[in-house]
């Protein structure tokens, strides 16, 4: 019985991606990144539940990688710890196999391309889709390469490819990404930097948010990198549909553990 229900749910997902749906919400979206298997190996599901309970809009589940070269020290360390704890691609998939029985908000897997490649790209897409994942962020899978080689795999599995743009990305390229991103969102990196390396926003970044805003893209943008509190969340979302918090959340987790989640999220929304 349960299995049939689950399959139906999946079928439903294939028709209308949860990300697409969520983006239609009238409010500014708060998305949280966390590293699977951290602080403890079996924390993954519990964290997801608590995030949903705190009214987070969307979650990026980090699939830890030995060499996360787009990440700063906080996420690196959490990845190293998670790997030591025993996380692996298969282990994560097993942990979240039934996740859609508990979690309704959109879920995105964020990882690096090599583990996906070793798993088999098609198989990876199929398996995450079966679990109920809605999209993937693979920072080192370049947009053009994805377009040429893996777009089909994503589409067959109703997975969104979330593409990063940075202050250095040309307008031309942004417009092209906008066209290809369809009903997903664009991950707007607040500055050219690794995760966790920003301290608030400077005028430069605000100008950049505004510039992108002026392009009137069809795809909503969600800002990532450098958001850590109510102030930066407000700044980021004044020009974008939402914002992602990663390093600041991991730091909180490593200090206060899972019980800190609710307070942290509330603080972001309402200080």
């Amino acid at each position, binding site marked *: 019985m349960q299995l049939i229900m689950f399959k139906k749910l999946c079928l439903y997902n294939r028709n209308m991606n949860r990300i697409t749906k969520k983006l239609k919400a009238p409010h500014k979206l708060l998305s949280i990144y966390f590293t699977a298997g951290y602080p403890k190996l079996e924390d993954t599901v519990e964290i997801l539940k608590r995030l949903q309970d705190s009214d987070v809009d969307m979650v990026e589940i980090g699939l830890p990688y*030995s060499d996360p070269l787009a*990440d*700063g020290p906080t996420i690196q360390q959490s990845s190293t710890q998670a790997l030591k704890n025993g996380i*692996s691609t298969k282990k994560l998939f097993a942990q979240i196999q039934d996740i859609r029985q508990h979690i309704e908000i959109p879920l995105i897997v964020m990882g690096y391309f*090599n*583990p996906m490649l070793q798993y088999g790209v098609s198989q990876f897409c199929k398996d995450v889709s079966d679990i109920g994942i809605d999209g993937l962020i693979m920072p*080192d899978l370049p947009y053009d390469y994805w377009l040429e080689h893996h777009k089909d795999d994503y589409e067959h599995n109703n997975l969104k490819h979330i593409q990063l743009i*940075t202050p250095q990305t040309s307008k031309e390229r942004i417009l092209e990404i906008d066209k290809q991103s369809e009903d997903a969102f664009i991950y707007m990196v607040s500055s050219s930097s690794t995760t966790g390396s920003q301290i608030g926003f400077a005028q430069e970044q605000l100008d950049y948010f505004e510039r992108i805003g002026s392009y009137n893209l069809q795809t909503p943008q969600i800002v990532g990198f450098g958001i850590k509190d109510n102030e930066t969340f407000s700044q980021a979302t004044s020009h974008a549909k939402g914002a992602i918090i990663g390093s600041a959340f991991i730091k909180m987790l490593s200090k206060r553990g899972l019980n800190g989640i609710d307070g942290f999220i509330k603080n972001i929304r309402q200080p």
Partner: protein
Amino acid sequence: MYNVNEKGFYGEFGGAFIPEMLKPNVDELRENYLKISESEDFQREFHQLLKDYVGRPTPLYFSKRLSEKYQTQIYLKREDLCHTGAHKVNNTIGQILLAQKLGKKRIIAETGAGQHGVATATVCALMGMPCVIYMGAIDIKRQAPNVARMKMLGAKVVAAESGSKTLKDATNEAIRDWINNPEDTHYIIGSVVGPHPFPDMVARFQSVISKEVMKQLKEQSHKSKPDYVLACVGGGSNAAGIYYDFLEDTEVGIIAVEAAGKGVSTGESAATSQLGRQGIIHGSKTLLMQNADGQITEPYSISAGLDYPGIGPMHAHLYASKRAEFISVTDDDAMQAGWELSQLEGIIPAIETAHAFAVFKERKFEPDDVVVINLSGRGDKDLNTYMEYFNL
């Protein structure tokens, strides 16, 4: 056939698997590197510095005593005589000139054994450019003389404390720095690895080695080209340098020597072609050592410069296409070969380089074969290791 194609691939290896944050830097480089480096001005300046500053051409030295011992014709390409002690400086001279033409104001680099770090710090001092070198915290400890050299040269040495705290992590840190400083900074990568166009660019700068060999061999031997060119492979830059002009001439045999560490199947090895699978490391698709899950595994070799879990995409292609013969050599055999070269020819090689010399114990050559071996670096940096190993 064996060189890079217009998309940045060697066969199925290569490419540029980089985060969007790096794209402008890498694009800028890709669009400009050939235009600049092939220009007459650049070539003149590059070769002037190679001559007056680096000390090129390095000799091609016929090793009488090794040749007698192994009954074949062994020539040594003396990159150990380059300023700073290894071939690495050929590349850093090229890249610093390129960085200047691109208007860059700051240089970063990774280093394992410290040779590339020293070569980078050196050219930065020469050009008066600030320089940050990333080096694994563990390597900083085991390569103290090179750390001191970098500091004497005015470079800032930053310890990579992440991951296994060795070369691959230093590379990650350098890439992170580049991501964080996309406009004024050039990243001088130290081998034929990384995203396109790095492997091709570094190989071209190092190709001065094979060009010289070709000319020198004609003057010095009875053959107009070698029967074999032979080099150790860490990332693969000294090998790329000595193979380069012979890549398409299949009458010239290509031999690549990897570090087997304590033995290919001991779990403490860096023999990438034997132990690796296709994957992505530092922005390029190549062979690399990884677990089933695609996590990069930590290699082991007694030599810090071969202690890298990947090889350049050119070498992956040479391996897959069987154009090159791959041989792996244990720590012990390499150390013995280093000892032998010291005692027979009065040349103490870098331990990286010593691996290449261990081939003669493993593989026979014909008496008439001309084997040119890249003596990629000198052993000054390795004296502590030699002392401990041989109880000197």
